[in-house]
């Protein structure tokens, strides 16, 4: 894919236009990255498309190869895979906390002990998310600002 950047006058709105043969995963990834830079993600709910503010997202979960975005009281489905969203959101205080979940650290009210070496993240919505032991070191690093 070729890239072309054209400088425009400050009074004109900035626009990113993609000319492609088909809307491939690569194209979706580029669009998702641009939207995430603007603080938004595209997802569907009730057969309608929504732009969700990243700051409104509590967590993102992958279930049966589908990706769901959870906000306060509403669930959206994303066409992107969990690892793609993880990549896009890693600079937005989101962290992978289990094989199937990416968590918004800004929406966690407390961390509690769970079975074995696991912890549970209690969200401001009251929901509880399991933090797998594999991801605990990454969480510790992230909280110390080392991630």
């Amino acid at each position, binding site marked *: 894919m070729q890239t072309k950047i054209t400088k425009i006058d400050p009074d004109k709105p900035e626009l990113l236009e993609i000319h492609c043969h088909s809307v491939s995963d690569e194209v979706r990834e580029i669009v998702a990255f641009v939207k995430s830079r603007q603080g938004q993600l595209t997802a569907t709910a009730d057969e309608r498309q929504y732009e969700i503010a990243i700051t409104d997202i509590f967590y993102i979960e992958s279930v049966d190869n589908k990706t769901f975005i959870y906000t306060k009281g509403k669930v959206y489905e994303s066409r992107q895979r969990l690892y793609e969203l993880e990549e896009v959101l890693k600079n937005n205080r989101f962290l992978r906390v289990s094989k199937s979940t990416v968590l918004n*650290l800004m929406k966690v009210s*407390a961390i509690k*002990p769970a079975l*074995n070496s696991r912890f549970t993240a209690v969200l401001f919505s009251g929901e509880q998310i399991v933090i797998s032991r*594999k991801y605990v070191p990454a969480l510790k690093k992230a909280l110390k600002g080392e991630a």
Partner: protein
Amino acid sequence: MAFKRFLVLHLQLYCVLVTLIFAASYIVGMIFAPEQNISYSQLVGPFILAGLCVLPTFITYFRKEPTLKQFIIRSVIQLAVIEVIVLFFIQPPENTIAALFYLLIGAIVLVIYVLAKLTVWLNKYLQSKKLTEQLRDFQANESP
């Protein structure tokens, strides 16, 4: 769980067990043979016994995340194996009722096992408390 982390956790468990076995030896000794003296060589006993009690936990090492059911089953198997090891290695002193002695030792092992698990859980509780504090600092620093 990484094997290194597993080893660190079990080293902690070993240290807790050594302490608790020393305490239990004192209690049992005071009940069954309060007038008996022990030699320095016998002091190594709790270290060996704690090692033997930690060994069964290696058999049930989980690479993947266990479910609640798996966790409970594993704990019951661990306790059963530990009871067998301890009762096999400890002999009742002379002039004591063997059944009563073994029953008491079995009960003490159960108490020690529960206390060891509680200690590990307490350690985890303190860790989670620290993580929550770090999380609040992180949120305060990252808020726009």
